[in-house]
């Protein structure tokens, strides 16, 4: 890596973390657990999300260990089924869906638009408690024996044919769903009603646009999965018959209701990550994002189109051929805005001034891996090839590429990028760049072989498999080990940086957002003087002007000090 860096830190011998900030303003556990400060809530989320991520990750490790050999020899088949179910439930509902919105979104949205907090701070806290309640229910489920329906709760398996803890899991997901709805609701109201003077829609950072689009999905789609889960729980408990063919019910109805949410859910997961990537690429190329309007509108387009493609998860389930045509066509349409974004980000690099700090490395990883993941989505959206590839490891590889190679990398990019703002300290650059590279390598080793496995026909959710698939599975597990290291390192060095990291100052990246124009960590009320937005987003010319003014003032202050020293000495 080039030694070039844009990092600009204050003089470390004199710099201090500002005495009054949102962390020091109040003390005590209750001041955190009963806070209405969006920044504290974001940190509460960060801690709990990381916790659930590592549980989900441990479960993934168990899966990969089992799949080292063709036979079911590490654990009983039932146990394996529970392991992959809980892996899915925890990762989807308790990590991916809330990840960027609940941590970075919560922390940054008010700051980026120049507000003091979200519109509904107490509702925000309620969101976190609902998330924790759901998460604890999920943990409880694991403790009392788990559930083995798959995270997709397919009926009639989940309603009549398993004797595991479907009810508690369903309840956990239901409760967590309301956390998501309330977060999305909060974001939409905030972005509409609390922008600073001068902050028009097209001066908003693209991070905000991305969260706005994701929030629309959160608000409109999540209630449908809530009712679908309620129906499953009632069918299971009372045998009401809505999904039971023997009573005239239709198991396919559940599929429609479930996927009506779960497809938009994947856009809920990825859009905020795309918002992060926009911010990172802009900052580390010192340039306004190429095609700002196109990127903004493509976020909304993904949200809108995302509502109309759900049945592409059901192409071989006996829906009519004409329905397949319609949904396949719409799926092709929803792929286009993502392609637009990738090209716009790429061309942001054109004639920029690029440096390769850790967030940028993760962003590059995102772009490559999301391109592959997105393209393989097109393989699946075309109804013909979907016949062969669906329900195999090709699907598993596809969604891990977009979710882990895409979303998780974006999350890590964002955490690193805004770490100095949140904590006031810089993370150690060299080891974090190493971790990024290790993660990228480990990821490819883990999931690329799975595309081949899927094409060869290896079905998903299999505890045992024909021996000719072993070599690729071993590759995949080896990669998973490397990936694990790549994820562990950030935990270690980020915690280390809390005590020993360099003092960051207001704007170590010399970035343009409003959040960078105030102290790190920020005040509880975010800004001492509420900002007025008098420039465009990503306005580096404005930033230069600001920095010159700051320098002039600094010089003047120094002059004044010198004068007073002289006069007092004289």
């Amino acid at each position: 890596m080039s030694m070039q860096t844009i990092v600009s830190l204050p003089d470390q011998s004199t710099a201090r973390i500002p005495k009054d900030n949102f962390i020091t303003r109040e003390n005590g556990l209750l001041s955190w657990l009963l806070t209405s400060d969006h920044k504290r809530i974001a940190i509460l989320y960060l801690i709990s999300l990381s916790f659930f991520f590592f549980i989900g990750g441990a479960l993934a490790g168990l899966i990969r260990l089992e799949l080292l050999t063709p036979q079911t020899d590490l654990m009983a088949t039932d146990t394996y089924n529970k392991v992959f179910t809980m892996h899915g439930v925890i990762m989807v509902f308790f990590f991916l869906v809330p990840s960027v919105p609940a941590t970075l979104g919560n922390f940054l949205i008010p700051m980026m638009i120049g507000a003091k907090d979200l519109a509904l701070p107490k509702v925000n806290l309620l969101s976190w408690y609902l998330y924790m309640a759901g998460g604890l229910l999920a943990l409880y489920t694991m403790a009392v024996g788990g559930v083995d329906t798959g995270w997709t709760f397919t009926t009639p398996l989940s309603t009549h044919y398993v004797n595991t803890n479907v009810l508690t899991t369903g309840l956990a997901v239901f409760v967590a769903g309301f956390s998501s709805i309330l977060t999305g609701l909060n974001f939409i109201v905030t972005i509409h009603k609390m922008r600073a003077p001068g902050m028009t829609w097209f001066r908003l950072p693209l991070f905000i646009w991305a969260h706005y689009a994701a929030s629309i999905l959160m608000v409109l789609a999540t209630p449908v999965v809530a009712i679908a889960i309620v129906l499953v729980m009632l069918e299971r408990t009372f045998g009401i018959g809505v999904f039971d063919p023997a009573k005239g019910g239709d198991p396919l109805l559940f599929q429609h209701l479930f996927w009506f949410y779960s497809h938009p859910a994947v856009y809920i997961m990825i859009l905020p990550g795309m918002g992060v990537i926009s911010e990172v690429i802009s900052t580390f190329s010192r340039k306004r994002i190429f095609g700002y309007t196109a990127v903004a509108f493509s976020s909304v387009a993904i949200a809108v189109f995302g509502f109309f493609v759900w049945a592409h998860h059901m192409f071989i389930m006996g829906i009519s051929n004409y329905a397949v045509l319609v949904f396949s066509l719409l799926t092709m349409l929803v792929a286009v805005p993502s392609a637009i974004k990738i090209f716009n980000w790429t061309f942001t690099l054109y004639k920029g001034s690029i440096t390769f700090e850790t967030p940028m490395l993760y962003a590059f990883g995102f772009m490559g891996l999301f391109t592959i993941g997105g393209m393989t989505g097109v393989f699946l959206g075309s109804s013909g090839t979907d016949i062969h590839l669906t329900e195999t490891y090709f699907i598993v590889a596809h969604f891990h590429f977009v979710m882990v190679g895409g979303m998780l990398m974006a999350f890590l990019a964002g955490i690193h990028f805004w770490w100095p703002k949140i904590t006031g300290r810089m993370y150690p650059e060299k080891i974090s760049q190493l971790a990024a590279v290790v993660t990228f390598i480990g990821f490819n080793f883990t999931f690329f072989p799975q595309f081949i496995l899927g094409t060869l026909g290896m079905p998903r959710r299999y505890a045992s498999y024909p021996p000719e698939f072993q070599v690729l599975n071993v590759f995949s597990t080896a990669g998973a080990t490397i990936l694990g290291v790549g994820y562990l390192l950030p935990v270690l060095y980020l915690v280390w940086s809390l005590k020993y990291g360099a003092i960051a100052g207001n704007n170590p990246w010399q970035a343009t957002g409003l959040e960078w124009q105030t102290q790190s960590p920020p005040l509880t009320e975010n800004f001492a003087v509420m900002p007025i937005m008098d420039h465009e987003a990503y306005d580096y010319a404005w930033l230069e002007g600001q920095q010159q003014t700051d320098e002039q003032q600094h010089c003047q202050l120094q002059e004044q000090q010198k004068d007073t020293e002289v006069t007092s000495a004289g």
Partner: protein
Amino acid sequence: MPDSPAIAHEAANSAHAEHPSYLRHHFNSTEQQADASNFAMWLFLLTEVMFFGGLFTAYLVYRNWYYPAFVSGSHQLNVVWGTTNTLVLILSSFTMAMAVWCSETSRRRGLVLCLALTFILGLGFLGIKSIEYSEKIEKHHVPGAHYSLQSFLDPDSDAAARAAGDKPLQLDMARKTEIYFSLYFLMTGMHALHMVIGIGILGFMILRARAGAYTAGHVTFVENFGLYWHFIDIIWIYLFALLYLISRH
């Protein structure tokens, strides 16, 4: 520009004197606060539409497939109670709208009265609903282990079916009435749950209204609750039409 905490606190202090006590500090003005919370309530109601939407979708599909079963099932519901309940709720929406007006025009006693009336009407609705539910339980029309097809296989043995002039259903179609009742209990039950929550909040509001909380300028709570109450009313009107009035002559 260095952020001096001193400047921050001073700014906050000087602004303190000028705004009403109910203005939350992250808002710039009471207008912004009212606007934001109103928008939030409309959005929340939109999520409720999506939530009920799943049930309406199920209803649409199954009514289309099993129309005769839905007719027979619907004829089992007491349309007198249903109409009464509809009128009760519409009246309660009126009293709620009056409550909002009282709050906006600072009529404390009027507000308390209107809220109390809404409360009582809401309880009345739930009371009638529980009469209906107990009737259903008695007749074994609750889906599950004790569901009985008697009324549909032999309508002459059932007063409601006789009154509606129902023909006996074939066994396979009679079995589908269980789906109708599942949807009936699900939809009205979900609605009743929302009523219970609403009535609970009404109780809280009455106490606060007596203390004058909503007649000193801070009307948004009452207004937003009014929105919620009207929404529940509208949902009921759809439920009434869809569940009670299938093929009634």
